């Protein structure tokens, strides 16, 4: 049984007269607990693919099945619900709310969840501890380093205990040391049983995963197992 399954996914953007085919029929499946890297040069359509995978956008054609249910069957509000409790996002540019504390940033997904307000604080602090930022709870993003900011974003992605974590170039804006730390955490999440889908254009980063799907010109170029996984010093235990 696959957790998510793509069949002939196509995506075409229409901008007045110009028609751009970004995805030209993509098919693959991911099992629960897998760690998959999606690689490709810029313009290959990997970000668009992630948006579809993460329920942020609907494909022009093709069938996307998540947890046994086709995306077409979801209303907009139901998609928001799925994004809230099944999915966690980590962005290249962190996307933290400025002038808002780490704690409040991490709480953000809880605001839209059905979880009782009384446990929000505990859940958020747990997630912050898990990324090793327990001492930064009351800091604001502007007082944190890039690596720390991305770890806050990871905590935010974790707080709702999602089935899948989507990471879009999570190390793209970081130096290699902070990038390594962030990847260690992501790998740790996978080891704890989370399904992780990582988008990157660096082979080095992609090799943390146990499977790499290469995308080129809107199509799957290759889909292979990683024989020797990059080992990290796990922060997450």
């Amino acid at each position, binding site marked *: 049984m696959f957790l998510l399954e793509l069949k002939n996914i196509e995506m075409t953007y229409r901008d007045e007269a110009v028609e751009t085919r970004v995805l030209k029929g993509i098919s693959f499946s991911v099992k629960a607990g897998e760690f998959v890297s999606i690689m490709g040069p810029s313009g290959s359509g990997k970000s668009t693919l992630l948006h579809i995978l993460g329920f942020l956008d609907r494909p022009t054609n093709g069938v996307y099945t998540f947890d046994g249910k086709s995306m077409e069957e979801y209303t907009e*509000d139901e998609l928001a619900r799925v*994004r809230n409790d099944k999915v966690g996002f980590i962005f290249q540019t962190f996307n933290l709310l400025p002038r808002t504390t780490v704690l409040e940033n991490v709480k953000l*997904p809880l605001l839209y969840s059905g979880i009782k307000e009384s446990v929000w604080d505990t859940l958020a602090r747990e997630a912050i501890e898990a990324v090793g930022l327990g001492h930064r709870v009351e800091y604001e993003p502007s007082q944190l380093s890039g690596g720390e900011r991305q770890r806050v974003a990871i905590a935010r992605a974790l707080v709702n205990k999602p089935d899948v974590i989507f990471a879009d170039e999570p190390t793209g804006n970081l130096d290699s040391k902070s990038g390594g730390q962030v990847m260690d955490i992501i790998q740790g999440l996978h080891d704890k049983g989370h399904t992780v889908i990582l988008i990157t254009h660096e082979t080095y980063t992609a090799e943390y995963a146990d499977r790499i799907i290469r995308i080129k010109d809107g199509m799957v170029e290759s889909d292979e197992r990683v024989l020797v996984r990059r080992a990290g010093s796990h922060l997450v235990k």
Partner: protein
Amino acid sequence: MIFVRTFKTAWNALIINKARSLLTILGIVIGVAAIILIMAIGQGAQDLILGEIGGLGADTIVVRPGKQPTGPSGSIDTLFSDSLKERDLDALRKKSNVPTLKSVTPAVFVSASVSYKGNTYRPQVFGWSADSMAEMLNIYVTRGVSFGEREDRQRESVAVIGSKVAEELFDGEDPIGKSIRIKNKSFRVIGVLPPTGQVVFFNADELLLVPPSVAQLYLLGIDHYNEIIVQAESPESVDRTVADIEHTIRDLHNITDPEKDDFYVQSQSELLSMVGTILSVLTAFLASMVAISLVVGGIGVMNIMLVSVSERTREIGLRKAVGATNKDIHRQFLVEAIVLTAVGGVIGTLIGFALSAVAALILSRVLGVSWAITFPVMAAVLGIGVSAGVGLVFGSYPAHKASEKSPIEALRYE
């Protein structure tokens, strides 16, 4: 619960941009402050004027000759009609006609100058019993003596004068017992009224009272009255007294059709409600003029909210990515606009109250009246309510714009 949380989120967003938020609500603050000020002054004026009229006593009834004036030209009829005479007075005095009547006094108005030695002054000359005025308006002769029905019956040429009249004519001399001339007739001053100022429709300090029959006979050469002032036994019996008066005079004048009445009866309560209505209409009119400024303020709020929505495109995208529905985003921005304008309403109300306290102090000084400081609760509720309503109306469009942003567009936005 969800509202408290949304309120907190909105509050935080507004606090982050303190200066901008304050400037945005300035229009609302000014508008609401102006409305509160106008309503407070209107209320103060109403209290003052109604208080003065009310000072006449709720049991006072006035009978005037002519038709009830329906416009400014109608009052001319009242001035020239001679339908009310002594027989009417006598008829009203009969217990069998108007059983609930307590007292009745006639009044005539004289337009004349008064002189003493070389000094001349033009007071308001009323042929009206000084005793009756004292009882009705609570202004009692403090120097000398008053006069009443006995002096009227005996056609005594006596006068009671206001403090200003005394000052103008006598230059500090004691007026009591002195002889003054009105229309070449000699009158003896027997009493002086204390300085009182404006009372209802005239200035008590500029009064000169003589017995009504004397005014009719010696000053005007007429046999009718300009007014007959009646006091009912109690405020409760006013309606019945009015009906009895109308009936009695109609009988006397052989009038069967009330449409053809050559007199009209007005009670103080009627006058009170009339003046009250005029003042509140005026206040409401002014307040609604100022309310236009709230619309202008609302447009300012909408403008800034639109800027804010566009600036926070990334935030909106992020919120949607982590599970916010369109409705959540819509509510967030709408509540933000409402909180913004409601805060403007509260600040405006406080400023408005402060300004009206200052205005009350200044008016009391300048006009020399006891202008009460009023804080109309209605105005506060209205001010804050209306400004929150402005937020609701003018926040809807920006909130709609925000909710419609697609999450990927929003996240891509740099």
